[in-house]
């Protein structure tokens, strides 16, 4: 797969070539089954506590767990 380049202008006005979007040929034949990466119960639960921390973690600082409440 050959890289594709695009010409863009930098902040100081120079023209540069930058790497453009590259797509593999063909169409995807299999789903991106990312959930299979968690292989056992411990890994699944660990992912839930980190990846889905919005609902399952006690130790992070989002809008509802910030130090100073809005």
């Amino acid at each position, binding site marked *: 797969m050959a890289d594709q380049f695009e010409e863009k202008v930098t902040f100081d006005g120079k023209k540069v070539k930058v790497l453009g*979007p590259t*797509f593999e040929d063909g*169409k*995807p*034949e299999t*789903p*991106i*089954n*990312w*959930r299979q*990466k*968690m292989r056992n*119960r411990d890994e*699944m*639960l660990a*992912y*839930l506590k*980190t*990846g*889905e921390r*919005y*609902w*399952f973690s006690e130790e992070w*600082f*989002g*809008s*509802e767990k*910030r130090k100073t409440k*809005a």
Partner: protein
Amino acid sequence: MSDLEKKSIDPATIKMLKKAQADGCETIFDRAETMKPCPIGAEGSCCKNCAMGPCRVPAPKKKGETAAEKTKRTGLCGATAETISARNFARMVAAGTAAHSDHARGISEVFLATAKGEVPGFQLKDEQKLYQVAMDFGVEIGDRSIKDIAVDVGHKAVAEFGRQEGEPLFIKRAPLKRQEIWRKLGITPRGIDREVVELMHRTHMGVDQDYRSLLMAAARCALADGWGGSMISTELQDILFGNPVPVFGQINLGVLKKDEVNVVIHGHEPLLPEIMADVVHDPDIQQAAKAVGAKGVNLAGMCCSANEILMRHGIPVAGNFLQQELAIVTGAVDAMVVDVQCEMQSLAQVAKCYHTKLITTSAKAKIDGATHIEFEEHNAPNVAKKILMEGIQNFKNRKPNVEIPSDTADQVVGFSHETINYLLGGVFRASYRPLNDNIINGRIRGIAGVVGCNNARVTHDDPNLTLIKELIKNDVIVLVTGCSAMACGKAGLLTPEAARQYAGAGLASVCEAVGIPPVLHMGSCVDNSRILMAATAVVKDGGLGDDISDLPAAGAALEWMSEKAVAIGHYFVASGVFTVFGTTWPTTGSEEVTKLLFEEFENTVKGKWGFEPDPIKAAKLMIEHIDKKRKALGIDKARERVLFDMAKRRELDAA
């Protein structure tokens, strides 16, 4: 432009309308010409809740109605135009909630039976999602067996429908501030069935006759749909059949095959479709197809059943709601299999024009003139085989007038909120942070959910697609479900490449970096609960307020048609989202009711309704709302970026 070309912007649809005309077969598009909507019913001014009526209280055609004239505009019992309008609206919410929730009840029962090992063919495919829901439901995980955990989850899910007090278990998923708003207003649902029953009671003759009270009760009922029935459907379906992940698929009538037995699965519940998707690979089925001269069996979906099996298996989609008759018009559909919701009775009549066998499968939904083969979960694989064999046997009855349009489009679907979270950060850094950051820095202006149906009163697919293209052009990322998602698929908006072609520079740059389309297909109509979850994740991640109503976000259903759409719209509004409907608005008979929904709701539930049939104007309304929210968050203007050196940092620390 010919009259036919005004009916749809989809070329395959127009081709099949021409064929139907040539074949002398009437479709919904013809009936939309000959039968106009009742103007009094359309504005919600007809009350038929008792046998003293129906009473008609239409809004005056001219402005300036006097108080005396208004007083006369009541039903026999004295019900005002406001009460009648609000009652009609509320009953639509109740019906929509009932539809989603009865779907969820069926799923819950099969889930429980699967957990107990009582239903062959079904299994729990997504262990991780089981743990997720178990944690939500407070079911102990520990070292217990999957079966024990699942049985407990199943019992808890089934109990949600008959819950009489407390709060549905998924309510605590909502942002904390949102939960407080509901509690203060007294609209947190108690149970799912209870809210539907109470709303039907309130709208009975001579009960709740204050439109404000009725519409708040409708909000409570709608929330029992979005954060109750619909969410239970989505979550348990994910455990049974797998949480959707990105998968490639194709859409439009061109997915039908001339040399194969075409079986179209149409409806909403994924139980039978999932088993059919499995059983279709059975060597006996394929051999039987070859025995009748076909190359095999081609399974295709229609409406939300299609969305379900597309999202999980990549099974092709024949089309959306207004294409259901037209699939039969191809003359190549050997069996159309339907379960519940959005199946037009006219299918039986259209099927008679061709050779198609129309098969109903739900005990709740029979159609006069169709063959009924009831889906029994305890015997699902055999029922699925029997249905496929009906299609195979019917292959030889095809008539010579087979014409399949060549139109198909590629699409990438499967964007559950869990998958979006993963795609934005990977296993170790799964997060909505990149989305929030790009909203804050302005590359993404906001988020829109564009959902809902098709409606034969407007040009098929046009309002939804025009709206969505305008939104992504203005850097608004769009989440889609249902028939709206299918319109996007047909128009090529559901591929990563669409970002560069259709999206504004900011949105396109983010989509290209992540490798996602600018329009994300999140599933069927019950899967609007996934949009609620995504919105909640954005809130909880931080930086964009404390509630869904703080987000630069808006929703729309410009081609809405069903009562389910009203329930969905109302739960989005009650969750804090500005939601715009098109085509027609069912409370225009009462200025007060409309004003309450369009303006005053923003002071209470912090969300509001809007009505705008023109898609460009609707986009403008949504973008204005998004900009208003950006301003309130203080992210409406680019800020100067200052690079802090060590000395400046020390100054900060000292302060």
